[in-house]
């Protein structure tokens, strides 16, 4: 027998053992993809997060609904403004913008509610990602909110992200303010240069509503809307601003 042939079988044995050990290590002991995992783990994780995302979307939907109700209350209470304010020459509310301002304030407060939740994940997703993250658009009596950025659930192997949005019907007639603006504009024009406002002066302006007058501040209601108007000579606002201010 050739001397080289003497070592063939032992080498073959060692090579075989080495190959099997390597295969055992990579396939069984060190298999990152599937060590002890179950079939469809990632798929179920995806499905699980789909369920969680639905929970968040439901929370957002309900939050949006109550934020709308509260924003409408604010508009009614403050005469079209989001906060306590008065109508005067050169100062009237852009009602839809005021509504959005008020809505965002309440919606963010709802997102802050999640701070009380035990889950850090919920805090991360709801609080950080949803706050000031929505473009608001009106279409007749429906408010559409669409998130600017995707809401991301950071998982160990992958990120699950959703485009959050909501659609809420509401019953509020913004066009009422067109009529109110016209009425207030007429009254303010009529009393523009008067130092002290009296009931007689108001009557002369053909203002026929039930009102309350106190220190040149006239308050009255149109349906549920409480209006507050500063009458008389306006502080520093030139009368030529009429027309552009409304």
């Amino acid at each position, binding site marked *: 027998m050739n001397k080289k042939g003497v070592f063939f079988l032992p080498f073959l044995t060692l090579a075989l053992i080495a190959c099997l050990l390597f295969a*055992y290590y990579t396939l069984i002991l060190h298999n990152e993809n599937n060590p002890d995992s179950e079939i469809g783990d990632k798929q*179920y994780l995806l*499905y699980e997060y789909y369920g969680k995302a639905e929970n968040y979307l439901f*929370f957002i939907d*309900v939050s949006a609904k*109550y934020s709308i109700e509260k924003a409408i209350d604010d508009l009614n209470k403050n005469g079209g403004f989001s906060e306590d304010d008065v109508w005067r020459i050169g100062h009237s509310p852009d009602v839809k913008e005021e509504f959005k301002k008020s809505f965002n304030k309440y919606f963010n407060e709802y997102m802050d509610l999640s701070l009380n939740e035990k889950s850090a994940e919920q805090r991360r997703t709801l609080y950080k990602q949803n706050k000031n993250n929505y473009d608001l658009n009106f279409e007749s009596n429906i408010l559409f909110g669409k998130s600017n950025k995707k809401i991301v659930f950071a998982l160990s192997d992958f990120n699950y992200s959703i485009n959050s949005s909501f659609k809420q019907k509401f019953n509020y007639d913004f066009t009422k303010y067109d009529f109110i603006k016209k009425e207030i504009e007429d009254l303010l024009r009529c009393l523009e240069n008067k130092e002290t406002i009296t009931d007689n002066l108001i009557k002369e302006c053909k203002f026929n509503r039930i009102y309350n007058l106190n220190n040149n501040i006239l308050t009255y209601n149109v349906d549920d809307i409480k209006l507050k108007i500063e009458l008389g000579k306006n502080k520093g606002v030139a009368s030529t601003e009429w027309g552009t201010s409304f």
Partner: protein
Amino acid sequence: MNKKGVLGESIVDFISIILIIITLILFFFLFRYNITLESFFVDKGSIYESEEEISNNIMLLNYLRTPYNEGIIADLVIKSIKDSDFKELDLVTQGIFKDSNSCFILFIGAGNTEICPKKELGMKFREFRSEGSVLIPTKEKNIIEVKMLSSGEFYE
């Protein structure tokens, strides 16, 4: 070639062949054992449960989103807790789940309601096991948690 050399080579060959056979058998069982063990981990029961748990959550959400009067059931849940009167909610809920083949326990506020529409038909149902949980914000800025335990489907 001397006889000792031939004998030595034969012994080495013999040992090698034995070693190859032992190695192959050993690794066959090693692989087989692990593959079997891995297969063992793929527990059909646990897959079934996790699927049911997620479905349960979706079912709870669908229940809360069900339109009722001018709102949704979630509004009725909030109203019921506020007024501490669950009669209307109970009635509506029984109606919603009347065709279901499972039993449910709804935990709303401090109370709970069992809904088991086909219990009276003498059918048996599995143990309550999977749970869904949904948070509802209220106008007063509180959070109400509604939980639902569900059993598997009825069986004869």
